[in-house]
Structure formats: structure tokens, C-alpha cells
């Protein structure tokens, strides 16, 4: 047996405040975006995935950056740099937004926690933190805290045992709370397609907080389950569905753009693309059998190459292969159309399908 090493080993010199907790729980650790993070715990990725759909899991997502902007000009800096319109929300709320370059490529996708009137906690992807700081400034406070995501239909019930205030935070709402005297922030956000709460807890108190959440019945879950969960929910991952050469419109995320606001980086290129329509669009793909489609597989329609798979895996809920991929607009494909995915020299039949893959649409045939 030999693994197909698709990625070169990467340096992982940063560790979460929860590192020792993960080792004690038997986690398999892997390098990710410069961090050493849990891939899975002894229950395994598929079990962790299913428990997130049926009950509750706890992820360590401390590798996400936290860049803090404070002061009277913070609003204007963010409003001018990022695509979404902060006028749509207010203090105590969270917003998903993009940082573009001048060509409207998505340099990063970001969640902003508007914690207090003049305080914004901006959360980029692990490997993009320095790039985001170059664009918006602010102070990198990543090392000061852990971020613990409790996700699943029973996430709030489990979290309420540990931090009732945090468990009551509304969807896309943000609130400050104290845990054993430590100042924490909770947000009704996540990356699984389930309800849930993400908690930023000071590094010193974070291990006890995570252990308490696990003791309250949330199963620890790793990056493996995080990836299969977000794929079932058809949520984009930077470096796959977003990145150099990919615009928000191609990714089907036009709602992330505040078209009514004046200026932001990449606006002109985005306006031009909106005028002509994107040359390719992200599509959902479902295969019949269990074989997972993989990133890089070529999408063929009637023998012609019409696109490329950006993420693919086995869906633990649907028990078949699912994928996201960019399909050329001029191919004229619509939902229900059959395509073939070329996986390592073999052809895997697939159907263009509605997203998210999970939950399945009620009444859909």
C-alpha cells in the first residue's frame, strides 16, 4: 500500500493552546496552514461527521486568524477594503465577506465579528492572516486565544451546560461573555451547515473550556470532519473554490458583495464581470457510487472538457460521492444534466446537482 501524496509536507510550527488536550484525547495531528492541528480523534472522521449532523461536536479552530481593529476609523477601513457592506449589520453581529485583489480574485474569505461599536475581530484563514493584515492593518491577536466551534443540532444544549450566555447567542450575532472570570466572545457562526456557536476563549482558560464542552457531550471532531461537513453544506474553502483567478461571482457568492456601497478593492473588475456574466460557475456534482471524486478531476460533457473539480469526497450522509467544481458557462449545463468525471484515468458518471447537498431539499425528486 502506498499513499498518493498529493501535497508536499508543509512546515507546521504553530500549535493551538489546546494542543495537549488533543494529544490526551488521542487525536491524529496533521500540518494545516502552518499549524499542527487534529485531523481526527479515535472515533474517526465519518463518526465525527455523523454526530455533528445528529447531536453536537467540538472543533478547535484556533488556526483561524484573529486580526483586531479598534478605533473610530476601523469601520471605514473595513468598508473600503472588503466586499460586503457593513451597513447591512451593526455592533453585536457577524458578517461573511471577501478581500479581493484588483482583478477581483478572492484573496481571502473572512468572517467579521463586530464585537463592540469600535471593535472588530476579523477572522481570516490560517495561511492568509498576513495578507489580510497587509490590506486592513490591525493587531494580530491570534496567539492570545483559542477558538472553539460547537456545532450540531444539540450544540446549544451541550454548550449551555458550560456557558449558558454563549449558548443563547443568535445566528450571526456576537456577544461578549465571561467564563470563570476570563473575557470571551461567542458568535452564532460555523462551517458545517448546522446550527452552532463559535467561542473565542483566552489561551489560558481554553483547555478547561474545551474539556468542559466535551464533558457536556460534544464529541471532539477534527479537520477531516470539518472538510466533509463543509463540502456537504457546499461551503467554499479558500485554495479550492476561492483563490487566485476566482471571483465571488464565479463562486456563486454575489450576495457577499455590497453592490450599493461606493468603493472596495476589485470593484471595477467585478462590475465588468457582472456586466458580461461570469465565464464559469461553481456547480454541485453527485456520483452514483461511493467512490469519492477528487480535486483536479476533469469534468466532461459529451466527451468535451467543460470544467474541473475543486473539492470532492465521500458524503457520509448521502453515502455517495459529492463534489464542487467550476463549469464553463458556455457549456450551457443545468441541474440534472449528466457529466463524467475523469478520476485517475477512469470515468466516473455524475449529475449536476443542487447545493447544498445536505440537508436534501424537501420534495425534491
Amino acid at each position, binding site marked *: *500500500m*502506498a*499513499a*498518493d501524496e*498529493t501535497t508536499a509536507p508543509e512546515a507546521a510550527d504553530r500549535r493551538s493552546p489546546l494542543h495537549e488536550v488533543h494529544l490526551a484525547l488521542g487525536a*491524529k495531528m496533521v500540518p494545516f496552514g502552518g499549524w499542527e492541528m487534529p*485531523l*481526527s480523534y479515535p472515533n*474517526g*472522521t*465519518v*463518526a465525527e461527521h455523523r454526530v455533528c449532523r445528529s447531536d453536537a461536536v467540538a472543533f478547535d479552530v484556533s488556526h483561524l486568524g484573529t486580526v483586531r481593529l479598534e478605533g473610530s476609523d476601523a469601520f471605514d477601513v473595513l468598508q473600503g477594503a472588503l466586499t460586503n457592506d457593513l451597513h447591512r449589520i451593526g455592533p453585536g453581529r457577524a458578517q461573511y465577506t471577501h478581500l479581493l485583489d484588483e482583478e477581483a480574485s478572492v484573496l481571502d474569505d473572512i468572517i467579521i465579528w463586530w464585537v463592540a461599536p469600535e471593535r472588530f475581530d476579523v477572522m481570516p484563514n490560517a495561511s492568509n492572516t498576513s495578507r489580510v493584515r497587509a490590506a486592513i492593518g490591525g493587531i494580530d491577536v491570534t496567539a492570545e486565544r483559542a477558538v472553539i466551534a460547537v456545532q450540531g443540532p444539540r450544540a446549544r444544549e451541550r454548550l449551555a451546560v458550560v456557558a449558558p450566555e454563549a449558548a443563547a447567542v443568535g445566528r450571526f450575532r456576537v456577544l461578549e461573555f465571561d467564563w470563570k472570570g476570563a473575557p470571551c466572545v461567542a458568535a452564532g457562526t460555523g462551517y458545517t451547515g448546522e446550527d452552532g456557536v463559535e467561542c473565542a476563549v483566552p489561551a489560558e482558560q481554553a483547555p478547561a473550556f474545551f474539556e468542559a464542552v466535551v464533558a457536556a457531550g460534544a464529541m471532539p471532531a477534527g479537520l*477531516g470532519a470539518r*472538510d*466533509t461537513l463543509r463540502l456537504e453544506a457546499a461551503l467554499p474553502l479558500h485554495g479550492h473554490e476561492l483563490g487566485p483567478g476566482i471571483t465571488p461571482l464565479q463562486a456563486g457568492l454575489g450576495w457577499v458583495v455590497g453592490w450599493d456601497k461606493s468603493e472596495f478593492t476589485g470593484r471595477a473588475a467585478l462590475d465588468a464581470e457582472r456586466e458580461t456574466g461570469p465565464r464559469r460557475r461553481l456547480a454541485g456534482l453527485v456520483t452514483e*457510487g*461511493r*467512490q*469519492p471524486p*477528487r480535486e483536479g478531476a476533469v469534468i466532461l460533457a459529451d466527451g468535451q472538457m467543460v470544467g474541473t473539480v475543486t473539492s470532492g*469526497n*465521500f458524503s*457520509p450522509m448521502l453515502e455517495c460521492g459529492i463534489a464542487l467544481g467550476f463549469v464553463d458557462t458556455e457549456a450551457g449545463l443545468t441541474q440534472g444534466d449528466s457529466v463524467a468525471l475523469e478520476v*485517475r484515468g477512469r470515468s466516473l458518471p455524475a449529475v449536476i446537482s443542487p447545493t447544498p447537498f445536505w440537508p436534501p431539499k424537501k420534495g425534491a425528486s
Partner: protein
Amino acid sequence: MNIPEDLRYSSDHEWVRLEGTRVRVGITDYAQDALGDVVFVDLPAVGAEVSVGGSLGEVESTKSVSEVYAPVAGVVVAVNPELSGAPEQLNADPYGDGWICEIEVADPGTIDTLLDPGAYRALTEA
């Protein structure tokens, strides 16, 4: 790591159990643990002739794809039909219900060239 005493091993983490002139082949506990949750097994074709190091199909987990190599030369005479619908058996019972295929061995003497349990353990602990 579970390394049964009655089996022989390849350096590519396959195990072999000699039964007359046939061997049963699977992947080791070490291999299934490294793979993570197996979600799909591409089985070899019954009747296929394989040489040492030839392909015996692929095992896919949620994180990677791995090729299975033939530890001995011969003809594939049986495959584990259960793995198509329940590939997780490969994780749960790699030396039992998670077996992959059986090979009618061309030269049973080649079994002796494979690693014994002690040598395989040394390999996994290196």
C-alpha cells in the same frame, strides 16, 4: 499496533495468510490507521494475473487514495464482496472481515521472502 504472529507482511503494509497454495491478502492495522476512515475499495478482478508489486486495486479514505500492491505473484481467485458495501470493515477488522482478496500463488516459496512479524514491527516502529 496489532501485528498477528501467524501472518507475513510486505514493506508496503500488506499482510498475507498462507492457506494451502492460496494466500489471503489485506492491509495491516498500521495501514488502516494511517489511512483513516475507508469509504471506498476498488477491488481487483477475479482472474487477474498479478506480479509482485503489481496493482491489487485502491483503497480510498476521506483524506487520501492508496494503491494496494500484490505481495506475491499469482492469479486473483477471490475478492471480498462485503467491502463494496461496507468498506469500513477494513478499519474495524483489517486481518479478518476486512480482507481484500485471495491469490493462487505461482511459487509458494516466495512467501518466505516476505517480512516476519518481528521484522514488520521493526519497520512500523522505525
